[in-house]
């Protein structure tokens, strides 16, 4: 067993650290919402940031060079994920484009589609959103009803999508539509690429339970989509969507985020009190904190096991699929502990003059609740482990 990286990889890490150190001002400016032109424009600033990251070689690392990628090794990708998460740099704005749309196009798109979109995704020129879920099709995604009729050389789309992250700022959308109402539900779905400026699209921001609005509803009213924007075959969209739905991000960057959360929690414990005494002397608090440390360690080693398999060219084992379920549970438990330690201050809004740490703990609590719903609910993740890993019979017939 050996967790060390090669000398070459460590040199690569050092080069990245130097880049990060040299671009600290750029990162700060981006976080203040100032773009390359010096204007206050937070969205443009985030696009610019992604382009700088890309030009430095830290976006699209695994992609083919022919489409603007860098074809880096897996360990280099892991190093970049780790370092970027550790240093609290701004994230890439085009997450859906990078993690869902691009892998789909690389695998299933035609040459024109790849040429048209991939580089723009990398540079942050086009921000993509995902039109999959509907009010009546959440966990049971394949029952979606947004319809598309084929007319000459175009589709005409009518229906509604929901939970669409970055909808209000997106330039383009990957959309699942029903093109055959009479076929079995998985056999009548088509995968489209849609320009969000098309006539007939209305985006309404949705506020989440915590008060923020990271997602939206998207309405389609006879929206015309050229036929060349279809990915794969007509009625063949379900398999394409499935192939990237499971696209697991390297588990290790998620662990760094949890480690960052844990550090903040530890600072709260250090400063807080329980029952009139320092929280650090409270056995129950220490016991909880220790449990979180154990679970983060567990996730980290789980990530190393997966990485180790991938490096050998093996398909990740069953441990890879437990990561999401486990980490969302852990995230919520940590957020609840933070509120317990915050004590009476836990019920104050950000606006209160008495609020603790500018409301970070309450925001973190609401934020944590989304993790067991978005990207597949924990109930569905249980089904996935039961059916695909334990090979138990399907619980739902359809």
């Amino acid at each position, binding site marked *: 067993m*050996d967790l060390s990286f090669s000398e070459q990889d460590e040199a690569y890490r050092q080069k990245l650290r130097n880049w990060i150190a040299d671009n600290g001002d750029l990162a700060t400016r981006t976080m203040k919402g100032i773009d390359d032109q010096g204007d206050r424009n937070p969205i443009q600033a985030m696009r610019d940031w992604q382009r700088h990251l890309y030009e430095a070689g830290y976006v699209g690392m695994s992609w083919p060079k022919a489409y603007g990628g860098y074809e880096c090794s897996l360990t280099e990708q892991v190093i970049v994920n780790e370092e970027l998460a550790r240093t609290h740099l701004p994230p890439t704005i085009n997450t859906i484009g990078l993690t869902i749309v691009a892998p789909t196009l690389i695998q299933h798109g035609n040459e024109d589609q790849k040429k048209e979109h991939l580089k723009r995704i990398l540079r942050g020129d086009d921000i993509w959103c995902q039109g999959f879920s509907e009010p009546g099709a959440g966990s049971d995604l394949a029952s979606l009803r947004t319809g598309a009729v084929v007319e000459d050389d175009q589709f005409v789309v009518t229906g509604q999508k929901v939970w669409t992250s970055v909808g209000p700022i997106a330039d383009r959308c990957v959309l699942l539509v029903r093109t055959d109402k009479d076929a079995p539900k998985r056999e009548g779905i088509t995968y489209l690429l849609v320009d969000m400026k098309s006539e007939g699209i209305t985006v309404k921001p949705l506020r989440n339970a915590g008060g923020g609005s990271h997602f939206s509803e998207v309405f389609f009213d006879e929206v015309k989509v050229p036929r060349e924007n279809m990915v794969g075959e007509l009625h063949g969209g379900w398999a394409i969507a499935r192939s990237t739905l499971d696209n697991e991000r390297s588990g290790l960057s998620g662990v760094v985020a949890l480690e960052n959360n844990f550090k903040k929690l530890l600072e709260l414990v250090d400063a807080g009190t329980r029952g009139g005494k320092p929280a650090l002397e409270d056995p129950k608090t*220490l016991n909880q*904190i220790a449990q979180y440390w*154990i679970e983060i360690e567990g996730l980290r080693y789980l990530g*190393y096991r997966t990485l180790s*398999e991938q490096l050998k060219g093996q398909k990740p084992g069953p441990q890879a699929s437990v990561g999401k379920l486990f980490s969302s549970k852990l995230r919520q438990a940590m957020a609840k502990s933070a509120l317990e330690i915050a004590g009476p201050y836990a019920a104050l809004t950000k606006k209160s003059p008495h609020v603790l740490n500018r409301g970070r703990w309450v925001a973190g609590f609401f934020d944590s609740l989304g993790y067991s719903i978005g990207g597949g609910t924990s*109930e569905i993740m*249980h089904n996935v482990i039961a059916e695909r890993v*334990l090979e138990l019979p399907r619980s739902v017939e359809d």
Partner: protein
Amino acid sequence: MEFQLSSDQLAIRDAVTKFLSEEWDLSERRRALDDGPVKISDTLWQQILDMGWIGIAVSEGKGGSGLELLTSAMLVEEAAQVLFPSRLCSALASAYALDQCESAGMSALLASHMTGKTFVALAVDEANADYGPENNSTTATLSGEEGLLTGQKILVPDTDVAEHFLVAARLGDKGALIRVATDAPGLTITPMERIDAQCVSELELKDVAFSTEDILGGADGAQAALHRAYEFWTTLISADLLGVTTTALKVTNAYAKERHQFNRPIGSFQAVSHRLADVKMDEEVGRSLLYGACLALQERPDESSPQVSAAKAWLSDAATRATEAALQLHGGIGYTWELDVHLLLRQARSHAVYLGDADYHRKRIGAYLAEQLKSSAAEAQR
């Protein structure tokens, strides 16, 4: 970067699985519940000694194979999957403890232990003190080269075959492991009858004589030898808990596919399948933590306690949950004497409170985190 079993380890694992499936009869565990304790036949144990299992982690210079600690953990996990007695854990841990010492006497004892001439067992847990190597009410006092040992130890393993004990005791202001012969005057051994029917006893020590040569690692190395032995043994018990978890999941998963109610396999009901998915998650996190503990022990043995404790805390809880789920999901048949599920539950419960329960190990991690905070605050002040 390599964090999985190597092809050599996989080959050893397969050989171990094959050997145990041919030579070990699980019904011995059931027999022992009525007429205990659990026995391993002399022939079988001799075969194990001949294959060199006990010296698998011992340095090559001392006649062992010098394989990485993960190999030992893997061996124990495989053995636990078929409920092979924990004498294997105990023997590996004693060998590791003796390997920490350079004296000729201890090296000779190690050689004798590895070939089966003299079985050496560790005595750590106490009734009168908290868990852990640093908490001993058993006291050793030295005057010159000679000393006396007084106190009580519980759950000491393999007293049916042991000829020497390595007793954890307080020596001055430090901890130490002190060798005592099982027939030493002043030592009384009383069997304790544990729910898993393995042979464990209480030791009562009243002014048991020893000399400085019996202190593992000598005066200077004593504390480190005790701590390393404790961390390694604890890790092996974690591996044992993982093996039990794996088997509990395997048999229950198979049953959930085959048992029908309401004209469907019960594994198609989410109340059943989701609980099994949780056990799977427990198992995979546990296996990852076990690998982490082995790596820490291998690379920095004197700073490995947080990782060792993480694995033991997690697997103590996980094995308990897994075996309880196994009993529940088997329904009525799971609650019978005939089914093997209660054997797994007994072993899990016994080891969950052995060498520190989950709460103790979380307490150790809590203390480590508090220490980290203090040192980073001190760092910041400077």
